[in-house]
């Protein structure tokens, strides 16, 4: 095991690969720092583009963007009270108050070190857990994969979105999109309308780019008209003390890292949920702190940032081993692997060890790079990214997207598809439909259908193949637990409400 990692490390020793990691991390921080751009937008624009470059370079860029943007989101969260990415919402709670009290440089430093440590812990978890799990997945046949896909579908519908109905509609739309193309078992065409372009179904990369990046661009165009160009000058204040002074944050970091890793492995949840849970836990433990939570407690920043960053590597565990992405960022990374013909699963670990183990190391190295970014000079530069006018940014992004998506299949058809998905995403955003269930619906719906029908074909139509083996039974049990969670939560809330209403009557 160690030997494979050492070999992979040596395979990374090339100038362009290290350059890719550095460029990716810095670009990620900028992408995260700009409120219009999120990790998903950054990756969606980049991935089709990496098609022409060698996989280690492409994956280095992706790892950098993933880790960098998770930290970058904290910069506007702390300086302007605007989360740069959804995962940075919890960072605003204590980050902005701390910044207002004149310690913005300290707040940024804490956010940066917390992000770096969280992401490093998560990368280590990925390196330790993914290889043995990938061996285990050889025991997964079509029946087991079917249940894994169902588990993914169940958890996204339960865990995502304020309005579960809208989440379900979004997921169903995804399932429908997964159904387009030739029926793999009979060869019948479904919803292809005689278009050869649709026979193989709709390319997931086209869906991802259209859905995540275009609506953002539309929004930028709208904002540019309404808001105009910001002329704020951003100043950093505070002492910028060294890591030595931050030792008291170690317990918060470790606990938040653990929470983030667990949330990362579970499908459905993402960095924002990890950050909230970690923040709540820190708040629960630190009730008696000198600085109250929400009024600029450094532990609040540390918990939120370590929490959201430790989601990163862990979310790739099910992605790399099972081909089941836990959230939309992992789905994008999977799209990036597929563009290079790298199919997640045991064969990835067996046939391309240098690439997959190298990628895990890249997740670790790019996390370490964040320490460099944490320096005052770098942070000062990144803070200026907030001032790039959106009127310049939006057309640049569209240009990149069109060029990138065209390159995947050399197909003009894909550009129209991308535009269609962009409009779909725009209206879904406007109407409050979450996009992630749709994307996971496309990926998991295809997997579920293919696995179910393959299983039934192997068993010659005998449905018992789905429940007769232990792995399937364990996954079914987990599915039941996942389904029961909302009911349990509802019941507990009801109980609490009854107690609360009963309280005034008791003496």
């Amino acid at each position, binding site marked *: 095991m160690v030997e494979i990692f050492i070999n992979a490390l040596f395979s990374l020793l090339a100038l362009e690969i290290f350059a890719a990691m550095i460029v990716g991390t810095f670009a990620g921080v900028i992408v995260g720092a700009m409120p219009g751009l999120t990790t998903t937008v950054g990756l969606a624009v980049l991935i089709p583009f990496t098609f022409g470059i060698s996989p280690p370079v492409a994956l280095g860029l992706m790892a950098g963007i993933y880790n960098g943007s998770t930290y970058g989101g904290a910069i506007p969260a702390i300086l302007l009270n605007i989360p740069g990415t959804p995962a940075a919402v919890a960072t605003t709670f204590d980050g902005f108050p701390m910044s207002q009290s004149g310690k913005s440089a300290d707040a940024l430093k804490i956010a940066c070190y917390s992000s770096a440590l969280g992401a490093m812990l998560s990368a280590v978890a990925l390196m330790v857990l993914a290889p043995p799990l990938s061996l285990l997945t050889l025991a997964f046949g079509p029946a087991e994969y079917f249940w894994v896909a169902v588990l993914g579908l169940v958890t996204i519908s339960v865990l995502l979105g304020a309005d579960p109905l809208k989440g379900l509609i979004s997921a169903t739309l995804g399932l429908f999109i997964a159904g387009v193309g030739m029926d793999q078992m009979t060869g019948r065409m479904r919803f292809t309308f005689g278009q050869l372009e649709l026979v193989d179904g709709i390319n997931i990369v086209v869906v991802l780019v259209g859905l995540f990046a275009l609506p953002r661009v539309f929004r930028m165009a709208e904002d540019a008209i309404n808001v105009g160009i910001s002329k704020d000058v951003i100043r950093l204040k505070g002492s910028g003390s060294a890591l030595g002074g931050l030792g008291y944050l170690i317990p918060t970091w470790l606990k938040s890292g653990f929470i983030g890793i667990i949330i990362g492995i579970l499908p459905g949840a993402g960095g924002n949920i990890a950050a909230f849970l970690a923040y709540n836990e820190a708040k629960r433990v630190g009730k008696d702190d000198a600085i109250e939570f929400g009024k600029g407690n450094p532990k609040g920043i540390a918990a939120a940032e370590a929490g959201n960053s430790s989601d990163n590597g862990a979310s790739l565990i099910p992605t790399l081993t099972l081909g089941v992405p836990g959230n939309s960022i992992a789905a994008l990374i999977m799209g990036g692997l597929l563009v290079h*013909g790298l199919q997640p699963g045991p064969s990835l670990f067996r046939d391309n060890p240098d690439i997959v183990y190298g990628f895990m190391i890249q997740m670790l190295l790019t996390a370490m790079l964040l320490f460099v970014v944490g320096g005052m000079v770098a942070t000062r530069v990144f803070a200026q990214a907030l001032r790039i006018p959106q009127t310049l940014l939006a057309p640049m992004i569209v240009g990149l997207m069109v060029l990138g998506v065209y390159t995947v*299949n050399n197909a003009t058809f894909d550009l129209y598809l991308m535009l269609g998905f962009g409009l779909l995403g725009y209206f879904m955003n406007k109407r409050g439909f979450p996009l992630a269930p749709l994307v996971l619906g496309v990926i998991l719906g295809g997997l579920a259908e293919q696995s179910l029908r393959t299983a039934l074909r192997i068993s010659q139509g005998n449905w018992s193949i789905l429940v007769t083996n232990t792995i399937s039974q364990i996954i079914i049990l987990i599915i039941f637990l996942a389904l029961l969670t909302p009911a349990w939560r509802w019941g507990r809330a009801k109980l609490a409400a009854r107690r609360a209403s009963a309280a005034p009557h008791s003496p």
Partner: protein
Amino acid sequence: MKISKPYLMAGAAVLSLGIMSAGSAQADYPDRTISLMVGFSAGGPVDITARQVQPFLEKHLGGANIAVINRPGASSALMQQEVANADPDGYTLALASMPGMVAALFGGDAEYSIDDFDYLGTFTSEPHSLIVGMDTPYETLDDLVAQVREEPGSVTMGGAGLGSAAHLALLVFEREADIRFNFIPGPGAAEMRNQIMGGHIDGGLTAVGGGAQMHEEGQGRVLGVMGAERFELAPDLPTFVEQGYDVEWGAVRGLAAPAGLPDDVREKLIDAIEATLADPEFIEMTERDRQMIYYLNAEEFAQLARTQYDNLQGIWDEEPWIEE
């Protein structure tokens, strides 16, 4: 992985499309970029052949500029349709892979026929192989056939999707031995390999390169190779023919163009193919990459397309492999 500058190529393709309608004097062919179209994604076996022959064709066309353009989709039907409709001026060529090019005509919406192409010559051939899992009891094809005869449909055989070269190979074997497997179409060779190793399916069909590799690494047992003779790069694997089953099946890859090429252009392309195959550097490269050089001239290649079409038509009429 050698994937060279698709952006430049895309750009070059756009440029060459723009000038495509210009003039018909071909004496100075080629005087602009030639598009070599591939019906599969970059990195796949057909794409690799295209990228292997590209520099040699460039060299033997007197320093021409050839761009490999991937147009994956519908089992290569998309690319073939595009090439069939292109101007026959020698600037749009197809890396034609048999039997895929012919098989894509059955059951789909493809709007071209095998007569829409000028077949120029072939480069390589790779026979298919039948492989079973290490935990299965089968040591020879006879063992396998005996089991299937006893319990029809009890043996599961994987392979890339319906109508793929692997699936058609199985159909040909079934007809020769008069047996019936339970065919499990899968998304690709990597997944099939996992399913065989995990014991979820009994075996499958794959090109001999991948089959021999699994065999060597103890991930499966190759029971037979569908070549006329033993595969020279894995000589210990038995053929179907020597076990008494007259099955020869494999992928043959060559160069085709839209029908109606000017004679001098056709001549130049055929000369370039022959020069490529005789090029010592090309021979060395194919040996290193476990590719088998296999040359059919233009007439033989066209004949192969015709024969394979008729064979598949015969199978299709009796048992269509795709529901319409």
